[in-house]
C-alpha cells in the first residue's frame, strides 16, 4: 500500500503542554519517512482461534449477572483511504465501567468497580470491514492532569489493519459530551474535522429493541492502493 503524508493538524501534537505527560514523552524530532516494502505490504496473521466466546459481549464477563449502566451496541466499518474494507483484521477495545472506573490496579478513582464488568474485548472485522460489540456506556472520570480534569466518556480502540503500517490506537467518544472543550487529550488534535471524526453517532438503526442503544463509529486507516487479497 501507499502511505501519503498525513495533512498537518490531523495527527495530535506529540508535545501538547496542556496534556502534561506529553512534554517529556513526545518525540521532538520529526518522523523519518522510510520506504520499506514489508511494513507496507504484510501483516500479522490473527485468525478466529485467538477469540474467546464472549470477547464481543462485554456484558457477559461477570459471574454474578448483568453489569450496571446503559447497555449499548457499538458497530462500524473499518476502511482504508480508498474506502475499501479492512477485512479480517484484529480490533481490541477497553474502557471504564458505567461509574468511570477501570478494572485496573492503577486506577485510583473512588468510583466503584462493577464485579460484572471488566471492559475488555476483541474481535475481527468481517468481509465488509465491519466490527460489532456489546458493552456498557462508560462514565467520565477525573485524571488529575489539572484542576477539574475530567475525561469525556470514551472507549479505547486498538487496530491492526491489513498491513503493518496501518496500526492505529485511538479513542471513540459519544455525541454531545460537554467535556470535549475542556479535555486536552481530545484537543491535542488541531484539526476540528479530525476531532469530530472521533465522535460516534447515535444509531436508531443499530439500536436493538428494548435491549440496548446503538452507536456507530466508522474508522478510516491510512493507506491506499491495497493489493487485492490473494494476489
Amino acid at each position, binding site marked *: 500500500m501507499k*502511505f*501519503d*503524508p*498525513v495533512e498537518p493538524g*490531523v*495527527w*495530535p*501534537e*506529540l508535545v501538547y503542554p496542556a*496534556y*502534561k505527560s*506529553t512534554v*517529556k*514523552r*513526545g*518525540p*521532538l*524530532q520529526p*518522523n*523519518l*519517512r*522510510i*520506504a*520499506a516494502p*514489508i*511494513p*507496507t505490504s*504484510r501483516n*500479522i*496473521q*490473527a485468525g478466529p*482461534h*485467538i477469540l474467546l466466546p464472549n470477547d464481543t459481549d462485554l456484558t457477559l464477563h461477570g459471574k454474578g449477572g448483568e453489569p450496571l449502566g446503559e447497555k449499548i451496541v457499538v458497530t462500524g466499518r473499518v476502511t482504508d483511504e480508498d474506502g475499501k474494507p479492512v477485512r479480517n483484521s484484529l480490533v481490541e*477495545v*477497553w474502557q*471504564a465501567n458505567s461509574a468511570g472506573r*477501570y*478494572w*485496573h490496579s*492503577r486506577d485510583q478513582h473512588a468510583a466503584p468497580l462493577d464485579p460484572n464488568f*471488566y*471492559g*475488555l474485548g*476483541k474481535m475481527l472485522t468481517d468481509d465488509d470491514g465491519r466490527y460489532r460489540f456489546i458493552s456498557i456506556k462508560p462514565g467520565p472520570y477525573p485524571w488529575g492532569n489539572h484542576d477539574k480534569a475530567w475525561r469525556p466518556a470514551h472507549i*479505547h480502540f*486498538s487496530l491492526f489493519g491489513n498491513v*503493518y*503500517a496501518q*496500526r492505529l*490506537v*485511538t479513542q471513540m467518544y459519544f455525541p454531545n459530551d460537554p467535556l470535549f472543550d475542556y479535555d486536552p*487529550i*481530545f484537543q491535542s*488534535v488541531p484539526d476540528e*474535522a*479530525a476531532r469530530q*471524526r*472521533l465522535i460516534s453517532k447515535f444509531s436508531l438503526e443499530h439500536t436493538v429493541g428494548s435491549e440496548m442503544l446503538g452507536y456507530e463509529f466508522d474508522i*478510516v*486507516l491510512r493507506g491506499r492502493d491495497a493489493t487485492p487479497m490473494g494476489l
Partner: protein
Amino acid sequence: MSKITTSQTIGPFSHEAWQWLADAGLPGKLKTAEHSIQLSGCIYDGDGNPINDAQVEAWTPEGAGLETEQLIPGLRRMPSGEGGEFSMRVPAQQAGRGEPLAYVTVFARGLVKHQFTAVFLEDDAGLAQSTILNQVPEERRALLIARRSGDGAYRWDIRMQGENETPFFDYV
C-alpha cells in the same frame, strides 16, 4: 483530503486488555523457533526517567513461518516494568541482509500517537546494505542497533527525546 481517523494515547490502563497477547510470549507459553534471540532494554522519557506504562510490540515477519504454533506468529507484546524495562524472545531472522531483527511499535500514556521504529543486531553482516538504515541519517543509525549482551541476548534502549532520541519512522 483524506479522512483518516486520528490517533489518541493508550492511556495508563491498557494492561488488562493487552495482556492476552503479552502472555502468549512469556516463557512456558511461547512456542518459538529453535534459533531465537532475547531482546531486552528500557524505555526512557526526555529526562532519562523510565517509562513504566509503555507497551512495546515487536514484529518479525519472517519469524512467523518459524513458529506457526504461536498464538500470533512473529508478534510479541510486552508492557514496560517499573524500571521501564522490557524483554522478549523473538525468532531470529536470516542474518546478512540488513533486515531488522524486529519492526517495533511503541505506545505509552502521554504518547498521543504510536511510534514505529526498528531494531537491528550489531553483528549482522548486512547492516551496511540495509535499505532501512541507509534512509536514516548516518549519525543516528547506531541508535537502532542492539548490542550483544550474552549468548543469544541483545540489549537495545528506546529514548523518546534527548540527544539520543530513537529514530522513529513514518512508512511511505
